[in-house]
Structure formats: structure tokens, C-alpha cells
């Protein structure tokens, strides 16, 4: 049926199911070909790209990790020299934090939040497209620099003065700082989109107390991003100014201060770790609910715990600076606040345990990942409580004890739930199931490999091994444990390789997935796998927290939307009562071009401050074209 056959004000009630599906499919479709791919604004396509890209960065970062482990396997090893080693661990850390962990969590938000709240696209879909391209450009910048032996070599937190104009020679530190700008720009854009999607586009009836916990976690994460990332933007910008035009923010000789950098960085850096962790928590809640076959115990405490973590996250940054010699009273305050965050984290663990206890757990791969998560994350959290103690931290700060802590919380606390989430949502995203038997192997290898790799690092730290050393002498007697760690990392790597193998293989030959393979309760399972380009042929209406459990046989829906333009529902913030039928923008190439223009500007500004001036002209042009109305039905009101 072509567009001309349809009356301009035709509603979805005018068509039969099948005709409606076809009509909506052509209305929301992404055209084939390169141009279509570059101009799509479909949150599912963009989310999928984000996820795949982030996992590629995990793989690349993992390869660097293996290089680190080879170098450290024996004392006085010569596999990597000092210079390469410093680039490798810096890029490993920066890549894992900025190019893998944060983006992958947002990517899941971009894909899932619109589906889980029952809408047809994310808010500001073009901004979403833009954010992906910017992210990609940032990632390529960092890795191209490493390939050209221009990789940053200053650690992932780039302390001044080492990264400053006097000691950070060449363009290495600038590359680092600009990579930050790229990734933060994209993160901020996604954060605003998610906030508005959750605030304004929830399915009618999805009042605040019915929002799925994963969506809550993405909402809190997005606010963390909005409040924390400006700090790193300010920090990296002032660093570039110091390096490029001779300002003195970090120069103590001219009234600047070295610790200012650390305050700014960690004011961002601490919330950053919860930006990674909170979405993982949301994933755990989803998986636990489905596989314990029981509504979650303590919905309200869990939501409050998310908020408490989010708020407390801004009061902890100094715990990364316990040995810089700040006043004792201040340090003790930050010990107290750091330990206090164990309370909301504990509440979450307790709620999941209670749900599992009272439910009927089904041991499928996603749940196994959750079990692995609880076992390892609690260790990492407890070592977090240890390093939160000022006197104790004076011994273990900047040692492998801390390296062990943060890999326990990052991998045990975030990557395990993430992989569980991949097994859980893969059928929805790809339309095929992953392999259950391989999945069990993946869990087992990763769990065992992980603990064997990282547990001994606690001991290494206590027996004196500092972090970020490219080698150590045989007289230190760290060789044995390091060799053990490096060999165990092989098990870990095999686990990851098996995971990637399963994920790729299943895309081609996995069992075809039904709509709701796990019998899960939330809205993303109420549409086909993978979802059609419009997500839902009719927008769902909900009357409980677990719509598919409460009404298993038919989905309540709203009718009366137009079918000549991309249309979705806008609802009120608290009780999600319908307010308007809003249009959603069409595909456009301009976000892509704007991203190119921004990339050119940001990269040239490493070399000349004037690039900011002339570089903003093409950006302005692309932005105007992006927003200028094209007279499509979406513009009617």
C-alpha cells in the first residue's frame, strides 16, 4: 500500500492487523544501503551498533590486558619496553572505562529503555545517531594514536604535572584529553535522551511505581552522567588549555594547583564507577525477577537504594586521594561516606537474595551469571570497604590490592551482569537464542579464570607490589604469583573467546527465538523478536508492574494514532497519563555530517586553538540543516 492511498488523518483503527503492520513497517523503516545506514535514527539499530562497537573495544582492551600480563609474568621481562608498557596500560584503562564500560551500559539503555517503557523510539533520535558517531570517532582516535605510537602514557586519570605542558611531551596527553571530550559528549547526549524518554514517553498507566528496575537504574545513571561528566569536560578542557595556550590552572608556580586536577577528575571519576555499576544492577534485577519466577522483593527499597547510591556517589571522591596529605578531619568524613555506600549496596544484595530465596530459581545462563556476580562483587565491595579506611589505604593505595579491588567490582560487578544480560536479551535483539550449554562453559571459565587471575593480586599488593610498574626485580619475589596470575588470565581469555564465539555463531545458527522465550514480565517481551522497526504496532497500556505476568494472554493497547507520520505517545511524569500524540523525527543524514564536522573541529583543536573558531562554522551549518523543518507530516501539529 503506498502512502497516497491513505487519508492524511487516517488512524491505526482504519487498518487490519496485517495491513497496519506493513504500513508501520514502511513508515518507520531504515532504507537499505549505505545512505540508509548512515541516516537511520532507529534506536534499535543504533543501540545494536553501540553494543557491538563496545564489545569490540572490550576485545581490544582485553588483548592489551594480555600484553600486560605477558610482560609481568616474569621479573625483568623484555616483552614490552617501559614506553610501550605505559601506553598499553593507559589505553587499556581508558579504553575499558570510556570506550567499553560506560558506552556498553548506555547502549543497552538505548536499545532497551524505549522497549521497556513501551514507546516507539528514544527521545531525540537524531541526537542519538549523532552520539554514536561521535563515540566511534573518539574510539578510533585513541586506537589510531596507539597504533602510531602516539598513545597516551599517563594513566587513565592523567595526573598533572605528568600530563601537563612541561612533562607530557608530544600530543599524547592531548589525544587522551580529546578522546575524553568525544566520549563524554556522546554520553551526555544519551543521558538526556534517556531521561526524557523515561519522563515523557512511558506507556500509559506506567506510573512511577511500575517502572521496571532496569529503567530506574538507567534513569539514575543518566542523572549521574549529567551531573558528573561536566567535571571531566572542565578538567580535560583546562588541561588542553594549559598545554595549548599556556594557561596556568595546574602550575603551582603561577597560582595554580596540582591537586585541583585530582579533585576535578575524581569528582567525576567516582560517580563514573557507579555509572558503570548501576545499569548492571538494573540488569541483575531484571534477570533475578524472571528466573526466580517471582516479583522482586523490595521494589521500593531497591529504587531508593539506586537513588541513595547516586547521591552518595558525589560525596566520595576524596577516597581516591587519601595519601595526598589533606586535613585529617576531611579524610575521616570521606571514610564515613565511602563506608555508608555499603548500606544501599547491601540492601540490593539482600533484596536479590530474598527474591531468590522465596522464588523458584531456574538455572539458566543469565541466572548463573548473576550467581557469579553476587559471589565476586561482594568480595570487591568488601575490599572497597577496606580501602575506604584512611589508615588501611595508606598501605594499599596504588598497589595491586587496588587493582584487584577494581577488577572485582568492574568485572565481577559489571561485566558478569552484562554478559548475563547479553544471554538474556540476545533473543530479543537478534531473534535467535544463544547456546545454553556453551553458556554454562562461559560462566564457569570466566568465574574460575577471573578469581584465579585477580584474587592473588590482593596478596601481591600487600607484599609490596605497586601498580603501573612495567617490570620488577627478581629480588622482590613477586615472580611466582605474577606468573600464576598471568597463566590464569589465559583461562579468563578462553572464557571470553568462547563467549564471542557463541555470540557470533548464534546469530547465524541459533535456535529461532519466540516473542518471550523466558516467560519474562516486562514490555520488551510483548513484541516480536527482533522487534519491528516501530517497536509496537500498538502502544501498550499497563496496569501493573509486571504486565506480561498479570495479563498473560492479551496485551492492553491504545488505539487512535495516526499512520501517515511517525507517531508516539507523550505521557505525564508521575502517573503516565496520556498528554499528546507526538511525532518522532525521520531518518536524516545530518547527524552523521554534524558528527564529522565536530570530529574535524575537535581533532584540529589539538593542534591550533583557532580550529575552534573556523571549525564551528561547518558544525553550525550541519546543525541548522539538521533542525530546519522539511515540511514532512511529522512537522504538522
Amino acid at each position: 500500500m503506498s502512502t497516497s492511498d491513505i487519508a492524511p488523518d487516517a488512524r491505526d483503527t482504519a487498518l487490519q492487523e496485517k495491513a497496519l503492520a506493513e504500513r508501520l513497517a514502511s513508515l518507520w523503516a531504515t532504507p537499505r544501503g549505505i545512505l540508509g545506514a548512515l541516516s537511520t535514527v532507529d534506536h534499535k539499530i543504533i543501540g545494536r551498533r553501540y553494543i557491538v562497537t563496545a564489545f569490540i573495544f572490550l576485545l581490544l582492551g582485553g588483548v592489551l590486558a594480555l600484553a600486560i600480563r605477558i610482560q609481568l609474568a616474569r621479573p625483568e621481562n623484555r616483552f614490552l619496553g617501559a614506553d610501550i608498557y605505559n601506553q598499553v596500560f593507559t589505553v587499556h584503562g581508558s579504553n575499558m572505562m570510556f570506550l567499553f564500560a560506560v558506552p556498553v551500559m548506555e547502549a543497552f539503555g538505548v536499545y532497551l529503555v524505549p522497549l521497556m517503557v513501551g514507546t516507539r523510539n528514544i527521545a531525540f533520535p537524531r541526537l542519538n545517531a549523532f552520539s554514536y558517531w561521535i563515540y566511534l570517532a573518539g574510539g578510533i582516535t585513541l586506537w589510531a594514536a596507539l597504533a602510531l605510537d602516539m598513545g597516551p602514557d599517563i594513566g587513565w586519570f592523567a595526573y598533572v604535572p605528568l600530563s601537563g605542558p612541561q612533562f607530557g611531551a608530544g600530543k599524547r596527553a592531548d589525544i587522551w584529553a580529546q578522546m575524553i571530550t568525544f566520549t563524554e559528549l556522546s554520553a551526555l547526549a544519551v543521558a538526556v535522551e534517556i531521561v526524557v524518554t523515561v519522563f515523557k514517553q512511558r506507556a500509559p498507566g506506567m506510573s512511577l511505581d511500575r517502572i521496571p528496575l532496569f529503567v530506574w537504574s538507567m534513569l539514575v545513571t543518566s542523572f549521574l552522567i549529567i551531573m558528573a561528566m561536566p567535571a571531566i569536560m572542565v578538567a580535560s578542557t583546562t588541561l588542553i588549555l594549559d598545554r595549548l595556550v599556556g594557561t596556568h590552572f595546574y602550575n603551582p608556580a603561577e597560582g595554580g594547583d596540582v591537586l585541583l586536577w585530582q579533585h576535578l577528575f575524581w569528582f567525576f571519576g567516582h560517580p563514573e564507577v557507579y555509572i558503570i555499576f548501576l545499569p548492571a544492577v538494573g540488569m541483575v534485577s531484571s534477570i533475578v525477577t524472571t528466573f526466580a519466577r517471582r516479583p522482586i522483593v523490595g521494589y521500593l527499597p531497591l529504587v531508593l537504594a539506586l537513588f541513595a547510591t547516586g547521591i552518595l556517589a558525589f560525596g566520595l571522591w576524596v577516597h581516591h586521594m587519601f595519601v595526598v596529605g589533606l586535613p585529617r578531619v576531611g579524610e575521616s568524613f570521606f571514610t564515613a561516606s565511602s563506608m555508608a555506600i555499603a548500606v544501599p549496596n547491601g540492601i540490593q544484595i539482600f533484596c536479590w537474595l530474598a527474591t531468590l530465596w522465596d522464588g523458584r530459581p531456574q538455572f539458566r545462563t543469565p541466572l548463573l551469571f548473576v550467581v557469579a556476580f553476587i559471589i565476586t562483587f561482594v568480595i570487591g565491595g568488601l575490599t572497597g570497604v577496606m580501602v575506604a579506611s584512611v589508615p588501611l589505604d595508606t598501605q594499599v593505595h596504588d598497589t595491586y590490592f587496588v587493582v584487584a579491588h577494581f577488577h572485582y567490582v568492574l568485572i565481577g560487578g559489571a561485566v558478569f551482569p552484562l554478559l548475563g544480560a547479553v544471554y538474556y536479551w540476545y533473543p530479543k535483539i537478534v531473534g535467535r537464542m544463544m547456546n545454553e550449554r556453551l553458556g554454562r562453559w562461559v560462566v564457569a571459565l570466566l568465574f574460575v579464570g577471573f578469581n584465579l587471575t585477580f584474587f592473588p593480586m590482593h596478596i601481591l599488593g600487600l607484599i609490596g607490589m605497586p601498580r603501573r610498574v612495567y617490570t620488577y626485580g627478581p629480588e622482590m619475589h613477586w615472580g611466582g604469583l605474577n606468573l600464576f596470575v598471568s597463566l590464569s588470565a589465559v583461562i579468563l581469555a578462553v572464557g571470553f573467546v568462547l563467549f564471542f564465539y557463541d555470540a557470533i555463531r548464534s546469530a547465524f545458527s541459533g535456535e529461532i527465538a519466540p516473542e518471550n522465550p523466558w516467560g519474562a514480565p516486562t514490555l520488551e517481551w510483548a513484541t516480536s523478536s527482533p522487534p519491528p522497526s516501530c517497536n509496537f504496532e500498538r502502544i501498550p497500556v499497563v496496569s501493573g508492574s509486571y504486565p506480561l505476568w498479570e495479563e498473560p494472554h492479551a496485551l492492553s493497547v491504545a488505539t487512535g494514532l495516526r499512520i501517515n507520520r511517525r507517531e508516539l505517545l507523550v505521557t505525564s511524569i508521575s502517573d503516565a497519563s496520556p498528554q499528546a500524540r507526538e511525532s518522532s523525527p525521520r531518518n536524516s543524514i545530518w547527524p552523521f555530517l554534524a558528527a564529522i564536522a565536530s570530529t574535524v573541529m575537535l581533532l584540529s583543536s589539538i593542534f591550533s586553538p583557532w580550529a575552534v573558531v573556523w571549525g564551528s562554522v561547518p558544525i553550525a551549518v550541519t546543525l541548522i540543516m539538521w533542525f530546519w523543518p522539511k515540511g514532512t507530516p511529522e512537522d504538522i501539529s
Partner: protein
Amino acid sequence: MRHRAVLDVSDLPMHGLEAASPTWWGTFGFMLLEGTGFALVIAIYLYLLSLAPQWPIGAQPPRLGPGTILTVILVISIVPNYWILKWARERDLRKVRVGIVVMSLLGIAPIIPRAFEFPALGISWDSNAYGSILWTMLGLHTTHIVTDVADTLVLAALMFTRHGDNPRRFGDVQDNALYWNFVVLTWLPLYICIYWLPRL
């Protein structure tokens, strides 16, 4: 899954305004993040001030003239900005056209004293940390003025085309006016920091 129609939304408006509009909330989101940026820059200023043995470092406090003129212009611009918000709400195209031209001019006007503000600081960005933070504060705020003016000019052009008479455009005008209020509001603490704290 089978569908069961329980809600008819055909009578809803085809576009949400203000709190019912996603862009309105998006604007708030961006204000929140940029506001955080401004707050951080002020925090850096106060931090450096607290460390310095004397403040300003190696300079006289900035001359008050240009900054104060700019402040007055910005505060005055709130009035037509308020009118344009009202007219946009009433969807009065003619008045909105007048208003947006006025706002374009009132957006360009402060750029002139701003150009004189930088020299009035009496210190260069590369003299010391005090100069650096001053230039950064002014620079950051200037980019906000410039981007908002650019936005206003584009919108003004748009209002005189056939796309103008459209509730969506009135919504855009409202969002733009809100954002201008934000630009004015964030200037006030910066003004106090730059011009008055060193005089205390």
C-alpha cells in the same frame, strides 16, 4: 501477542506543549548539565582563591564598566523575553515575529560590551592561574551567548518562512526563551565572582 484495545487516544493533541513536550524537558536536561559546568568553574575560582596568598594574583580587580553594562543589558532583556514567552503561548505570530527580532538584537547587544570585558580584566590568560580562570569563565559564558544568539537568529529566520505558523515553532520559541533566561541567570554569580569578590 494478542492485542486488546483499552484506550482511545485519537482526541489527544498532535503536539505537546511545555511540560508535555519532550524538547522542553530536553532543554532542562541541557541546562542542568551546563549549569553543573558553570558551578564547577565557579568552584575552581573559589578553590584557587582559597589557596592564593592574595587575590587577585598580580593584578588590580577588573574594571567594572563593560561587565556592568553587559549585566544591565542582560537583566533588561528578561522583560521582552518574558513577553515573547507569553506571546508564544498565545500563538500570536505577529507579536512573536516582533519579539524574536527584538530578542535577536538584545542577544547581539551584550556581545559588544563583552568584547571590552576581556581587556578590562586587566590580566592575560597566560599570566597566572587567576587570569586563566577569569578568561575561562568569560569564555564559557560567551560561548553560551553566542550559541544562543545563533539559535535565536535561525529561529527568527524560520518564523518569517512558511514554517513559522506552527505550534511546534512556538514551542521552539519558548524553549529558546527559557534558555536565554538560563544564560542570563548563570551570568549573575559569574559577575559577582569576577567583579565583586576581589573587591571585598
